[in-house]
């Protein structure tokens, strides 16, 4: 006891402190600790629930991501297929257009050739007509101006001898 006193420790004071601490502990253990423990348990439980929910959501998200990836792959495959079909259609349409254009070109060339031929024939016919008309005028001019009247009279007699055989009396 004395040694404790030499050290400056009051044994009775220590006992009182211990009793006070015990009383405080008992009050806390009775009134505070259960509520605190309960709150901690509730918090733990909530955190666990949240973790489960998060795991579930993660799992769902992974499923969605997987499905989305799969759909993306399918869609890309479909797009590729559609593109190929479209390209094939375009190639076919292009070939048809080219063929049609070729046919139209041939038809236009034929038409142009026909028009040129007709125009050429018309020009030739016109020229021939003009030449014939000119020759006719020249002949008429020569025959009306340059022929001896005696020859004209002779031609009348000659023509009559021919005509009388054709005309019944």
């Amino acid at each position, binding site marked *: 006891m004395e040694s404790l006193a030499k050290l400056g420790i009051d044994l009775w004071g220590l006992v009182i402190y211990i009793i006070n601490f015990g009383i405080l502990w008992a009050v806390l253990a009775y009134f505070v600790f259960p509520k605190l423990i309960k709150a901690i348990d509730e918090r733990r439980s909530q955190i666990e629930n949240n973790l489960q929910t998060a795991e579930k959501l993660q799992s769902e998200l992974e499923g969605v991501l997987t499905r989305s990836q799969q759909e993306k792959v399918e869609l890309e495959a479909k797009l590729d297929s559609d593109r190929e079909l479209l390209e094939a259609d375009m190639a076919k349409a292009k070939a048809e257009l080219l063929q049609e254009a070729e046919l139209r070109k041939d038809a236009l060339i034929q038409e142009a050739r026909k028009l040129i031929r007709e125009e050429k024939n018309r020009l030739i016919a016109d020229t021939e007509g003009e030449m014939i008309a000119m020759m006719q005028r020249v002949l008429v001019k020569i025959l009306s101006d340059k022929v001896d009247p005696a020859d004209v009279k002779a031609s*009348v007699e000659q023509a009559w001898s021919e005509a009388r055989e054709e005309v019944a009396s």
Partner: protein
Amino acid sequence: MIAGLLVAYAADTGASTQAVAELIGGVTSGSTYHLSTPAKSLAKNFVTFLNTEVLPAFDNLPAELNLMSTKDKDQVLDVLRKQSPATKWLAHLLETSTTHQVQSALSALVKKLAPQLGSVVVKTPTDLTPELKVQVRKHFKQDFAVFITDTSLLGGILVYKNGQLIDKSWLGKIKAIASLTK
């Protein structure tokens, strides 16, 4: 006026006045199908007279009669006047009309008097000689021939006979050659 020729012929031949009046009436109205027998006989004889006497006299006229001076023309027509009363009347017609007009009038008269006669038009570039005219009339003795001068024919002859065309003219030959090349 051309009917005066018929009256002159009737007077010359002593035809009945009634037949002459009937014939002139028929000619004027354009219907000579229902004439009496004397009138028909007169018409027939008159057409024969035209063909045998008047037309040869007409054909013998100079081609340039219309271009002659009055004095020269009178000399020619005097010859015509002395032949018969009918040719005298013809001379009178030629005094006031051209040969072409008289020829056309004669042709119209003959068509009325003798519709059964055919019609012949002979076109030549120059006037036919009287001899050739005689030949042509002889050839077409069943028809009434009219001669027309058309210088555009250039040469040869062109004959219309009752719608039939015989073209022996130079112009016709030129046109035929031109049409062959078309």
